[in-house]
């Protein structure tokens, strides 16, 4: 795979990898059939992402995109986090091979799912 150095860096040294005990919210997307599963744990205080962790099953791009996505949203307000992620995870990584572009979508979806989970819980 023609991955950029940045992708390989995040693959080798994923940021925020792991889980949060008693998280504010959890989001998970994908399934093993399609080959990628991403799970995002969020620790949210006053609509700000205090902490974020991820676990990913998937290829190098899947792991790197989840990693960089957590970096991009950590410390952000929820509304800003949603904007960031929809935008340019791939760009931040210095590009992704065309066949891997779906990975950055998936990372965004995982974050959205987690925030969705948070909103659902808070409505209750």
């Amino acid at each position, binding site marked *: 795979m023609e991955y950029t150095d940045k992708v390989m860096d995040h693959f080798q040294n994923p940021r925020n990898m792991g889980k949060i005990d008693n998280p504010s919210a959890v989001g998970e997307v994908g399934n093993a059939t399609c080959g990628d*599963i991403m799970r995002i744990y969020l620790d949210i205080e006053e609509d700000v992402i205090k902490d974020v962790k991820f676990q*990913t099953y998937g290829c190098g791009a899947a792991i790197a995109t989840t990693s960089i996505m957590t970096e991009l949203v950590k410390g952000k307000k929820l509304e800003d986090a949603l904007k960031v992620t929809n935008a340019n995870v791939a760009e931040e990584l210095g590009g992704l091979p065309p066949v891997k572009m779906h990975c950055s979508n998936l990372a965004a979806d995982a974050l959205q799912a987690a925030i969705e989970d948070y909103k659902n819980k808070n409505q209750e």
Partner: protein
Amino acid sequence: MELIYMDHAATTPLDQRVLEYMLPTLQDVYGNASSVHRKGQEARKLVEEARSKIAEVIGATPREIYFTAGGTEADNLAIFGVAEALGLTKGRHLITTSVEHHAVQDSFLKLQEIGFDITFLPSDQYGRVNPQDVAEAIRPDTILVSIMHANNEIGTIQPIAEIGKITREKGVYFHVDAVQTVGHIPVDVQTMNIDLLSLAAHKFYGPKGIGALYVRRGVRVKPHIYGGAQERGLRAGTENVPGIVGMGKAIELAVAEMEERGKKEIYLRDKLIEGILKIPDVRLNGHPTERLPGNVNVSILYIEGESILLSLDLEGICASSGSACTSGSLDPSHVLLNIGLDHATAHGSLRLTLGKDNTEEEVDRVLEVLPTVVHRLRVMSPIWPENLLK
């Protein structure tokens, strides 16, 4: 960091003795082998010598060997060539298996699309086809049975001689994709009753971009590439003289050293398998004994193949996987699915294929590195049992 190459099923390094033998054809012997003059004739001579060597090795005669640009083209020529030669007269039914290489499988899918009737025989859990199934599938309108000698992914060797007996008895052409076996284990078109056989040089330390199809005398095949009268009209195009000459030399060396290479590879293979299976939740894919000397294929649960490859690559270890992420399609290897693996297990496959120059130290190093890599990725994985949400 020393590089450890364990992807010989994908391609092998060019043997330096082969390169040396080819060099004159990359320098002074530059003529077109179809030219009348001396520059053409000196090239022609080397081409025919290579043809003879290849024929000898597989039990054929030189006139039964046709050079192609590789294994894929040889497979296409065999399958489309027979379909076209017999499709309008003898019949339109062809038989193959569900575990063939894409070069065979996709050719049959294409034939199916244009109206041929294709039977894809199932295999057992090891990837082996039952000769009895072949016998039962043959109909009066069957024109070809195409079954690979050994599988490129899981290494399983098919009972070719038994199947050849059946096809010969029933008078149906038998094509064998021997791309993974020629030069590695014995192949004999006579004792195995093979009518068409595909070869590719780069799988036995020969050059890339050259292959051959054996066509038994009298077997009817139409060309797949049209043009000049090269290869007695069956394959047009200026002869790839260096490729052909290198292929001849490579097959000669491979056969001379086959026993020795095979013994070493089997020893290392079995050591590798044994060591890898000590990692929890790992299964061996392919047949435990009827497998290629150099082939190791395992599924490592809870993690995905490409991420294993990247991690190994960072440690200097070159391997491959049947994961969708490396298959060029959206699905994981059809071979792994067709021997009964679910998608996740197929995605987690790892293939290590040994070659003549691998050492025991390299095997030891892989056995040292792999468990760490696997553990690291599992810790990251949301489907690893320890990470499952309660």
